């Protein structure tokens, strides 16, 4: 690695000032499980690495009114084991659980995952399905960005010079909502070659799927919502004939924009989008998000 100076500011303000001062020559470190790899491979060669670990309170998971607030340094392990998360937004805990290995999850953070902005980020599809927002602070101002406007391209976010992610806010879903995150990967600890999060709200009287959200990871330049697939599912009856699920799966596969790489081909990824959307839908219709065994 190119030698660098490690700085540990003690407030968000100080952190933003340092980032603004050093610009492209500085990188933020959260858990570091992605950053260290880039540093070792010399894909990034910052002169300054800035850690937020001395700023208190950034790893909190709090319930505030009807929202779950997750601090930028909350680890995936903390999220997957959080009773609050499992009770209110379990699909985010699902996504967290499927990141890497336990040892990686003990250190890797959701905030870092989102800011790294890999198309395959497991933190993203569940949050997109929940209409999450991120809080961002800069040297002078702070702002809220809906997550579906946060990702700008592979490895690129809406963060401007001097800005840091200060938290993730998730509106707690309506009662009657069901959600699941599924991922296909080559080995037990690989990144997603396709990731799918589906959320729907079942209206108890008419038994129809409402408020459908279908978010895809690793099949486009950024994590994305498949709005055409959502439209196909909206209002459909969850009792009786499930032929509509096939249309939803097909729409999602068509809307995805996967590439071929060493993990999988375009064709395989499209097929897996359809497979996972279909599987997710059947599980949610049956209200068995974590069922073992083969597809319905």
């Amino acid at each position, binding site marked *: *690695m*190119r*030698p*660098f*100076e*490690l700085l*540990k500011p003690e407030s968000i303000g100080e952190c933003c000032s340092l980032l603004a001062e050093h610009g492209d020559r500085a990188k933020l*470190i959260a858990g*570091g*499980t992605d950053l*260290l*790899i880039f*540093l*070792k491979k010399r894909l990034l060669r910052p002169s300054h*690495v800035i*850690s937020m*670990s001395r700023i208190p309170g950034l790893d909190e998971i709090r319930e505030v009114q009807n929202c779950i607030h997750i601090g930028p340094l909350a680890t995936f*392990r903390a999220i997957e084991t959080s009773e609050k998360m499992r009770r209110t937004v379990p699909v985010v805990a699902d996504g967290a659980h499927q990141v*890497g*290995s*336990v*040892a*990686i999850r*003990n*250190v890797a953070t959701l905030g870092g995952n989102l800011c790294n902005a890999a198309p395959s980020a497991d933190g993203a599809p569940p949050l997109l399905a929940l209409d999450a927002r991120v809080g961002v602070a800069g040297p002078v101002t702070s702002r809220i960005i809906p997550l579906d406007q946060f990702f700008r391209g592979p490895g690129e976010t809406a963060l401007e010079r001097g800005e840091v992610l200060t938290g993730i806010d998730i509106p707690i879903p309506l009662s009657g909502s069901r959600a699941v995150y599924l991922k296909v990967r080559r080995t*037990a*600890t690989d990144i997603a070659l396709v990731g799918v999060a589906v959320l729907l709200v079942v209206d108890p009287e008419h038994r129809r799927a409402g408020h459908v959200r279908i978010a895809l990871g690793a099949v486009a330049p950024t994590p994305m919502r498949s709005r055409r697939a959502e439209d196909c599912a909206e209002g459909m009856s969850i009792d009786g004939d499930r032929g509509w699920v096939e249309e939803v799966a097909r729409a999602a596969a068509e809307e995805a924009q996967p590439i071929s790489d060493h993990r999988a081909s375009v064709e395989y990824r499209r097929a897996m989008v359809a497979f996972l959307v279909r599987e997710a839908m059947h599980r949610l219709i049956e209200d068995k998000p974590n069922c073992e065994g083969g597809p319905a």
Partner: protein
Amino acid sequence: MKRRLHLQVNGEDYFLDVDSSRLLSDLLRDELGLMGVKIGCGQGECGTCTVLMNGRAVRSCLLLAGQAEGSRIVTIEGLSRNGLDPLQRAFIDHFAVQCGFCTPGMILMAKALLDENPSPTEGQVREALEGTICRCTGYSKIVDAVLAVARVSRNEKGGAG
């Protein structure tokens, strides 16, 4: 660009002047001579660099030494300060060691699991060891060894055997 770093490793306190870009794995091996910390893939995917940091299993090859400031680190050497740890004894008794390269990582991952969940199922043991790779044993005897330690500690506590 050196920083003064304080950490506790295997029960001993150390105050070291360390380059900001020094990896925790390299500090443990080269400054402290703890060769039970291994470098396999260097990317956090094989588990041979695993250490416990404040009780949690972490990949030391993916941590800057500076990220461990003020932490309590335990390496495999730290488990045998007062005789062999039950996990170490079980790995020997169950023939769960062949070349031994994965063994420190496996034992430390298992230790972290049992400290949090003293009675894991076989599935939970296998899940906890995901991402810690063994080329030699096929994992069965490693899993047997971990379950044996769990069984013994359950029996000692008088729980259902």
